[in-house]
């Protein structure tokens, strides 16, 4: 199976800086504050910070995993190298399901936001079909097109990050104290809840072969992950400064509610525009997830990626039909967060340690 795509399909390493936030910042940023503040209270920002730093360490581990040579260029190759063909393929299938799961969550949660905030009676099935056709259009263009979409999506949605200015006018920074009032365990629990929002950096394991001058991309990847962390930290700081702790318990979408405060002279209620523009942040995530799943499926089974992609899109559609009320979506989110946590915090370090051991043994042998 061809691992290395040829030069015309590769991207320059600088674009990894955009791919990282493009994949990590999804729909979680709109409502993560409540979940974390439940555990850590006013020290939630510390847990976001710590979480981001741990993610950077995990990213470093990923690069170490990938950098051993041409036989470890992407996840499928790593699995084959360490576990052989059959066990490796079993893990690969798990990852395919994992990527599909991320895409399902993203689409469904975003559509739930649309249902609650913009169009209560909208026909979800129709809307999902249109979005999936859009995803098909993008993924069909290949990895370069998806990267371009990430970059342009970030550029279009970046003014939305400036909206943090408006709540600051009413901020009470004394909400942030007393500092470090919570125990270490509580902060760590909040870190665990935070994983769903930082998920996405592990896609580097799939698109690593597509980068020219791969070694240079590590710097950009770390910068990208740090950028995501900064955005999340700013977001939670603003929320903590604005909301009282008791309020925060009841507000499901904290950031979105903060957009209601925006006071521009020609727009009365900004959140409609904000949510519509947010499409450009959610769609690159879904496209990358579907692309990663279909590419891994192609590498494992050998079928054409286009056919796999259509199959994956149909699976996503079917799942989204089942998730039709808040309770189910919430449950699905929690389950996915757990699975993501175990994969990222448990499986990746174990893989890293196992690979180091195996290579040491091989080194001794030869």
């Amino acid at each position, binding site marked *: 199976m061809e691992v290395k795509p040829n030069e015309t399909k590769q991207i320059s390493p600088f674009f990894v800086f955009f791919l990282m936030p493009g994949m990590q910042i999804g729909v979680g940023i709109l409502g993560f504050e409540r979940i974390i503040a439940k555990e850590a209270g006013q020290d939630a920002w510390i847990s976001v910070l710590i979480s981001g730093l741990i993610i950077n360490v995990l990213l470093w581990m990923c690069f170490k995993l990938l950098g051993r040579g041409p036989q470890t260029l992407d996840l499928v190759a790593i699995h084959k190298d360490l576990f052989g063909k059959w066990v490796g393929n079993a893990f690969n299938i798990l990852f395919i399901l994992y990527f599909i799961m991320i895409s399902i969550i993203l689409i469904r949660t975003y559509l739930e936001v649309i249902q609650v905030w913009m*169009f209560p009676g909208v026909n979800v099935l129709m809307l999902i079909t249109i979005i999936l056709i859009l995803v098909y259009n993008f993924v069909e263009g290949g990895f370069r*097109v998806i990267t371009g*979409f990430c970059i*342009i999506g970030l550029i279009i949605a970046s003014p939305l990050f400036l909206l943090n200015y408006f709540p600051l006018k009413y901020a009470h920074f004394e909400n942030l104290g007393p500092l470090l009032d919570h125990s270490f365990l509580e902060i760590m629990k909040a870190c665990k809840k935070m994983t769903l929002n930082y998920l996405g950096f592990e896609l580097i394991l799939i698109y690593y072969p597509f980068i020219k001058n791969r070694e240079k991309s590590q710097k950009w990847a770390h910068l990208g992950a740090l950028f995501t962390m900064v955005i999340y930290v700013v977001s939670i700081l603003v929320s903590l400064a604005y909301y009282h702790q008791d309020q925060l318990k009841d507000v499901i979408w904290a950031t979105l509610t903060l957009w209601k405060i925006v006071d521009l*002279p020609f727009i009365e209620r900004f959140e*409609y525009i904000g949510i*519509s523009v947010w*499409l450009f942040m959610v769609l690159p995530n879904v496209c990358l997830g579907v692309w990663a799943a279909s590419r891994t499926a192609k590498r494992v089974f050998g079928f054409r990626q286009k056919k796999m992609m259509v199959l994956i899109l149909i699976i996503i559609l079917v799942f989204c039909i089942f998730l039709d009320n808040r309770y189910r979506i919430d449950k699905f989110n929690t389950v996915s967060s757990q699975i993501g946590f175990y994969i990222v915090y448990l499986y990746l370090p174990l893989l890293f340690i196992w690979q180091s051991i195996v290579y040491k043994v091989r080194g001794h042998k030869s």
Partner: protein
Amino acid sequence: MRFFKGRGKMDAASFQVTSKDFQELLKKFKASDDFLTFQFPNDDGYIISYFNSLVSVQQLHEQVLAVMSNQPKKVLKQLKGDIPMEDMKLTADLKDIQRLVLAGSIMIQYKQDDEMCLLIPCVHSVKRQISTPESEYTVVGSKEAFVESLDSNLNLIRNRLPTPELQSKEFRVGSISQTRVAVLYIDGVVNQQNIKTVIQRIEDIEYDTIVDISFVSQMITDNRNSMFPQLIDTERPDHLASVLSEGKIGIMLDGSPHALVGPNTIISFFSSFEDYFQIWNLGTSFRLIRLFAVLFSVLSSPLYVAVLTYHYQVIPMDLLPILISSRGVIPFPPILEAIVLEGTIELLREAAVRLPAKVGSTIGIVGGIVIGTAAVEAGFVSNVLLMLVALAALASFTVPIYQISNTIRLIRFPFLIAAQLYGLFGIALCSAFILSHLLKLTSLGSPYLDPLYPLRIHDFKDSLIRLPFSKQKKRPQFLRTENPLRIRKEAEKRNPRNDIDE
């Protein structure tokens, strides 16, 4: 329209010589009444035949008949040495005879039914005078535009770029029309891969009559189904000269006063040649105004429909009474209003193109003002929407390139439908669809959304902003030229170390 044929078997537009032999060809010629045949100087002399409509009679009299009348009858080979004309051909090849006689050559036979003839080109070309450009008019700058004759156009270009590196390759396209196509480029600057691609695509063209360069453009373009033009046409020689020296390729057709230029990026939507004639700050501001005009033109009526149908909460409180009073009497939902008005504007535009000049301006006033006012009075449309649609129509004409203004006119309609279906979210979805199309589009192989994606910081110097010439030392990166440096000498530094009043 375009059928791929294996190249190498036939050259571009190889036409069939449908006559089996010389007699049949001559019979076909003689079937037209403007084909003259006579013997000169007497009944025993040469047989001279030509198409009266194609041949310059003055050249015939002065250069050919004058020489022949003074001398005894000679063999054609010796006659060839006597006549003071260039590029004469002595041949019996049917293909050559057919091609040259139909291009305006005189055929001289030694005696009747002789297959060997001497062909002398005496072309009488009917040319338009060089006039002002129609669609790319600039206030400052030269007012010369291309004309239909390829030779005059090449003259205009070569005068502006007197370098032997400017090379032109000619081909013939169209099996019946046999039209000459010239590909121009500056060797040493242009990317060789682009040249090969263009030449191969031109050679692959299979059609019977090619009358305009836009046919060629549709046949060699990268994506034949896209509304966004990948090859821009220009009718100014100075514009063509300046893009040729950047590293682009120019294609010209005999009979068409436009030249095709490629590869292009989406920035060509907003940049006019006139920006280079002004100081860079003015040029930059006008480009930004154009960007705003394009966005406004495409999005204004869809936003109106979306906001009024679904998201009336977005409208500021002070604007609400105005909108309510203007929309209150209208029996239709906003989408129908918008479609009716857009349709009326399109009708007016199509009609205005085909009306003769004198009637055209009247209809413009009648259509625009009277019908518009009457519609508002009758209660069919609201005056807010009327103003928006009229401004949007005006804004779509600020785009300097005619093909793109057509694109902008039509892109509005999918946005309108999307706005009616899903409001602001629908507009976002529609833009995402268009973005997916643009991301996949290439122009002669280079990506259409350059310099935005792939991000080339260097190319931003001549995109939405236009930096002064001193900052543009290198040619645009997306053209992948062989010689990226444009300015060699370091500009002399102004003396910055002097203090005030020193």
